[in-house]
Each structure stands twice: as structure tokens, then as C-alpha cells.
């Protein structure tokens, strides 16, 4: 039987505020345990949560960027469950009236087409604390620094039909939230987390199959691998005439498998109700208009502009815009250099990418300033530098030897274009290799390359090889 895969994702995005969603505690990552957990975060009796304005603004920006409806009136609810990292016994979240509803984003498919993935909702909520299961004499340690950190949970419709599409969607959301400046998207630090709902059904069947919820998917690759594994598992269960059980399963990246989480079956009754400690949040149109004006150029718009303005191929533009810092770097280089945008891109994907990889640096930490790279491209375009020397200058820039022009000056790397100077060199080289000169005259054209190589070596690569080539040729013939 042919099966169709159905996937929906729930993505938790940590909003990059200074303080927590309902208290004035810091959200700085990596602080010593419990030093950023105060009375509201600890759920002491008598405290009141007060909503962080910035978190609301960030949620609205996400809604605007995904063509969603921003709820004029939105309500916080208590999601009740017991767990030691949740001191109040409930998580403040949103249920019936989330702040963002009914949007969509487009993902690109391998056939060059696009697919729209609908966003059901995005709601604000607080994060829980963290349990540490090291050896505390058979006990668990609880760090509540993370309790109360603002999250935006983005829930998609089950619109994805493969692990690949799920990965694309997740990456797209990841790029978007970083462009919007609402999250750093740091997956190692847990700022961007994903759960997947996956099911299968016979092809052409309308009814959805029984789904399982996959947790612990803390990288793009794990999302894809976990869904692939789970889909195979469900298909083999169904093909053995078994039934898929609706359950939560944990992905184990070391074994590349999913397995059921124990003890969660009963907990799935959260008894949501409106939180009496928080009044309804009213968002007026003026605020929405103001935030709309603050939106940066969004990834899709930038992609279109890069293709149109810089004549990049769709895939080149996609790679660039997926990281805003790369896109910004590219634009500075392309605007400041006289070469084509492709030249700028080639430098970025060649020497720059290699240097960044070598030292495991993000482009934000590049040791070569984009303006210096642009000047370097200009010096290669105007003939000051040969392409080989341009690479030398790049490495010198990386090592911090100065600006492009300073390096060319101090290292005396200007290309030799004076044909008299080159002729002198060629004459010396021919004089030193009479045997090869004889071979050329007897018809062995191949030795031409030998002479060009020797001349380039003699001038330390500072001459233009094409110019050297033609001079060598004419001088050998003239002899």
C-alpha cells in the first residue's frame, strides 16, 4: 500500500526579552542556579504576574510577518499539571483566545515550487524550570532560572507531507524569528525547540491516521530523522494489521529511534481555565500599525530582491538569506565593490567560508570586514592584484595585517603590468632554459606553460598570467 505522511509542528520560540514574561527577573542564559528565580517565578502565595509589554509586541510582530490575525482581545489561561519544575502547579499559557491566529508561511520544494503551510495559532506562555538528574543522593535538583522565561508557541496545521517539508518549515520559522529580532534561535541553549505530530494514512484517504507526538527534537536534523523513523514504525505497525497508539514518544538521537514516554498518559488533562490573576489583553489598531512599520525586510522579500537586484540564482539567494548576517555581509560587499554580485558571492562561499569554517566562526565574527573585502574585489577588478595575490591579501586581512590597501602597500603586492619589466623577466627565464626553448622551436607548444610558470615564480605571482603568456609566446617565436 502507498502511504501518505502527515506532519504538524509545535515550535517553542524563546523571546529575546531582557526580563521574564510575568516578572522583573533577568533571563540571561547561563546564570548560576536559581539566582534569577524570584517570588513570582517561584510561585509564592500572594504574588501577581504582570505581563511584559515587549513579549506582547514580539508576538504581534510574528503574527504580522505571517499574515495572521492579531486578536484584539486575548486571554491567559492556566494549564494545570504537577511537575517539580513547575512551582505553581500550573503554567500560564493561552488557550481559547491566543494572541495570534490563522497565518501562513511558504516553504520551497525541491521541484522549484512553493507550498503554503498554515499556522493555526501562536500563543504566549511561560517556560518551566529545569530538572537536573545528577546524583543528589537519589533526588533531583531543580533550577528555576528558566521558569517564567517568555515563549511563543507556534502551532502549525498538519500541512506537511514529509520529514523534509517539516525541516523546511522549521528552518523557515527559525530564519523568520531571527529576522524579526524576537529570538536568538539558539538551539543549543534551548531558545528554539520543536515537537512534531506525525501520522500516516493510505494515499487518497481523507481521514487522518492516529498520530503520535514526538518530543526532544532539538535540531533540524533530529526533527527530520525522528519523523522518518516514526513514519517507518507506524507503517510497519499498520502493515502488520496493528494499530498506532496515540501517545507521546521521545526521540533518542544516539539510537535514532523513538520510544514511548512513560507516565504521561494521565497527565494529558490540563483543565485549562482563564487565569484570574491576569486581565484580558487588549491590543489596539494603533499599536499594530506601529509595529507593522517597525518590521524589517522579511526573508521572502529579501530573497526576491536579491534575485532581481543582484541577479543571484534562486538557490544562491536562498542560502544567503537563510542567515541574516550573511545577507547583510553580502549586501555591504556587493554595494561597495565595483565587481558583480556574483564575484562578491564567490568570495563569500570560497575564501571567506573556508576561513570561517577553519576557525569555526559565525559570519558575524568574521575577521575580514566586508568593506575590506569589497576593496579587495575592487583591486582585483582594476588590475592592481592578480587573482592569486588577491587570495594572499585575503589571508593577510584575516590575520589582521591592516586594510586591503595597507597590505598591498606594505607587502608590495601590486601586479606587475609594465610589459618592459615582464619582458626582462621572460628574457632571463628563456636564457636560463635553452633546452626548453629549443623544444618550443621544434614544435613542442606544451613547454609554453613551463615558461609561464617559471616567469610567474620569478615575479612571485605578481604578473598577470595571460600577459606573461603572450609575451613568452612572442619572444620565443622571435628568437
Amino acid at each position: 500500500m502507498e502511504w501518505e505522511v502527515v506532519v504538524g509542528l509545535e515550535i517553542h520560540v524563546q523571546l529575546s526579552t531582557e526580563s521574564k514574561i510575568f516578572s522583573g527577573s533577568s533571563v540571561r542564559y547561563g546564570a548560576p542556579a536559581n539566582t534569577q528565580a524570584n517570588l513570582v517565578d517561584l510561585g509564592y502565595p500572594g504574588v501577581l504576574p504582570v505581563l511584559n509589554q515587549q513579549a506582547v509586541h514580539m508576538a504581534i510582530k510574528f503574527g504580522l510577518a505571517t499574515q495572521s490575525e492579531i486578536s484584539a482581545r486575548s486571554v491567559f489561561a492556566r494549564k494545570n499539571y504537577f511537575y517539580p519544575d513547575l512551582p505553581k502547579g500550573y503554567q500560564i499559557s493561552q488557550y481559547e483566545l491566543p494572541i495570534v491566529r490563522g497565518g501562513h508561511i511558504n516553504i520551497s520544494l525541491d521541484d522549484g515550487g512553493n507550498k503554503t503551510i498554515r499556522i493555526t495559532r501562536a500563543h504566549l506562555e511561560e517556560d518551566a524550570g529545569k530538572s537536573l538528574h545528577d546524583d543528589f543522593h537519589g533526588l533531583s535538583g531543580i533550577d528555576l532560572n528558566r521558569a517564567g522565561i517568555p515563549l511563543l508557541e507556534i502551532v502549525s496545521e498538519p500541512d506537511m507531507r514529509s520529514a523534509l517539508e517539516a525541516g523546511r518549515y522549521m528552518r523557515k520559522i527559525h530564519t523568520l524569528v531571527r529576522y524579526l529580532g524576537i529570538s536568538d534561535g539558539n538551539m543549543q541553549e534551548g531558545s528554539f525547540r520543536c515537537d512534531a505530530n506525525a501520522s500516516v494514512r493510505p494515499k487518497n484517504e481523507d481521514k487522518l491516521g492516529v498520530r503520535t507526538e514526538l518530543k526532544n527534537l532539538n535540531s533540524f536534523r533530529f526533527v527530520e530523522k525522528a519523523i522518518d523513523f516514526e513514519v517507518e514504525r507506524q507503517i510497519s505497525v499498520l502493515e502488520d494489521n496493528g494499530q498506532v497508539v496515540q501517545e507521546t514518544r521521545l526521540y533518542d538521537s544516539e539510537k535514532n529511534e523513538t520510544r514511548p514516554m512513560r507516565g504521561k498518559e494521565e497527565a494529558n488533562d490540563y483543565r485549562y481555565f482563564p487565569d484570574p490573576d491576569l486581565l484580558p489583553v487588549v491590543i489596539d489598531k494603533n499599536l499594530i500599525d506601529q509595529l507593522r512599520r517597525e518590521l524589517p525586510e522579511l526573508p521572502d522579500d529579501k530573497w526576491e530582491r536579491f534575485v532581481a537586484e543582484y541577479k543571484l540564482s534562486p538557490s544562491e539567494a536562498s542560502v544567503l538569506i537563510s542567515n541574516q548576517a550573511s545577507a547583510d555581509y553580502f549586501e555591504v560587499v556587493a554595494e561597495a565593490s565595483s565587481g558583480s554580485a556574483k564575484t562578491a558571492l564567490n568570495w563569500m562561499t570560497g575564501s571567506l567560508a573556508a576561513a570561517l569554517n577553519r576557525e569555526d566562526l559565525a559570519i558575524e565574527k568574521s575577521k575580514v570586514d566586508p568593506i575590506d573585502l569589497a576593496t579587495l574585489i575592487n583591486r582585483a577588478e582594476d588590475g592592481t592584484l592578480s587573482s592569486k595575490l588577491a587570495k594572499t591579501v585575503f589571508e593577510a586581512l584575516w590575520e589582521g595585517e591592516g586594510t586591503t590597501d595597507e597590505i598591498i602597500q606594505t607587502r608590495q603586492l601590486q601586479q606587475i603590468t609594465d610589459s618592459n619589466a615582464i619582458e626582462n623577466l621572460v628574457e632571463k627565464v628563456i636564457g636560463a632554459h635553452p633546452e626548453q626553448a629549443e623544444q618550443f622551436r621544434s614544435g613542442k607548444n606544451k613547454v609554453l606553460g613551463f615558461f609561464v610558470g617559471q616567469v610567474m615564480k620569478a615575479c612571485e605571482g605578481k604578473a598577470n598570467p595571460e600577459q606573461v603568456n603572450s609575451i613568452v609566446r612572442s619572444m620565443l617565436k622571435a628568437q
Partner: protein
Amino acid sequence: MSLTREDVQKLCVLARLEITPDEMADVLAKLSDIVGLVSQLEAEDTTDVVPMAHPLDQTQKLRSDQITETDEHQLYQKNAPLVEKDLYLVPKVIE
């Protein structure tokens, strides 16, 4: 509407409460009364009534995104029965 014993047992699990078999009849009757009280609403036509999220006819004031709290964990941890390495210790909860 009245609740069943199973409803009450489930609620006890969810609320982490233990009641003895002797207490069951009393708890069941009292909880059923409360549900019955609220159920009166079902007799009314609420088609055009906007659900009320809060009894106060006011909207939420927002605070500016500023850090106003300082580290007081030593003070707060005086209330905790067990603390080690600044962590609150609880019975093991590993999945």
C-alpha cells in the same frame, strides 16, 4: 448533572489528593452540588452572550521590559526543605 465515583477518583489523581473510601460519598455529593450550581447556566440561552474571561471589566496593564529583581535565592531557599549546590532538591522525577 452529577459526578461519578470514577470522576472523583480521576480528579484526585490530577489534583494529587488522596481521599479515603469513607470520605468518598461526602466529596462526591459536595462536588456534584457545585457542578449542579454551575449547570444552571445550561438552562439559559447564551447564544449571543460573549464569554467572560474575567469578572472585572478592565484590561491588563503591561509592564516595561526591565529587570527589577535582584538575586535573593539564599533568602528564598531558607523555606526549602532541601537545598544543595543552590538547587531545590525534590524526589527523583526522571522519565
